[in-house]
């Protein structure tokens, strides 16, 4: 199970998690991007950029 890069809490990934999905640490709320599903790897989520949107 991957751990939070900030507070070391366990981050439980859902069975249908996708690479590229953003997940939150349940303890400290830091956002991470799922870089790999198998093996599970997290990195800090990218910061919102000026041209982000819909």
């Amino acid at each position, binding site marked *: 199970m991957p751990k939070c890069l900030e507070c070391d809490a366990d981050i439980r990934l859902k069975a*249908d998690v*996708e*690479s*590229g*999905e*953003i997940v939150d640490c349940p303890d400290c709320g830091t956002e991470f*991007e799922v870089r790999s599903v198998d093996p599970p790897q997290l990195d800090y*989520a*990218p910061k919102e*950029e*000026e*041209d*982000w*949107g*819909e």
Partner: protein
Amino acid sequence: MRLGVLCSIVRTEEKLIFQALRARGVPFEKIDDRQLSLDLQARQLPWDIVLERAVNHARALHTLKILNDRGVPTINTWDVANVCGDKVLTTNALVQHDVPTPRTRIAYTPESALATIEAMGYPIVLKPAVGSWGRLIARVNDRHAAEALLEHKQILGSYHHSIFYIQEYVEKGGRDIRAFVVGGKTICAIYRMSEHWITNTARGATTANCPVTDELDAVCLGAARAVGGGVLAIDVFETDQGLLVNEVNYTMEFRNSIGVTGVPIHERIVDYVLSVGQAQATTATR
């Protein structure tokens, strides 16, 4: 059919689309724009059709242009993304096609913007031409606020904040409408409600189902035609003078609209993508 889905981070919307494709047994390639390296000298690209779901407007815009110029159909097209990604171009397209929209003017200097605002009367709304989720839009109630905002934009803003998009303030009674158009059909709509004058769900607005009346359908289809059609979210104000189209979004988010409308929007998007891909394949084999 070699289907690509252009994206970077995977939002709930992309996840739903991926799941819908897998449930139908449709193979696809997730094209992460952060890892993309496009050869501009290449005449052919390895996709037959691409669904654009990128969160970055600039990356989407460039990629769509390169794809379309090499004969790869995309949803949406570069033309649609170009118009919808810039509020000036969107409003211009709506007006050119006689789609009702709030009164809007643009100016290029703080001085001419201030004169424009004074002429239009307060309150007005200042928006960046490129932007989303209600960010950096400002309701300007008086000359003091206008002067301060324009100075801040001039000194702190990036170059596109020097295009002053000035829209009349529309009293919308605490809600607006977001309608979803897919392939020339208004498939559903929601009310977005907030005590704040900004009613984006990204800013905390709540939602409820909005019936698609004949009037709403006509306005939304008119707006969709004006910007070039495809998969679109149309933001609409209800006013005493009738419905006014505020904005049109080309990489729409819809996670908050499936439950309240009961319409599986991701499935309708996949239906449309596959129909465009099949039509393209049929044309190519003739």
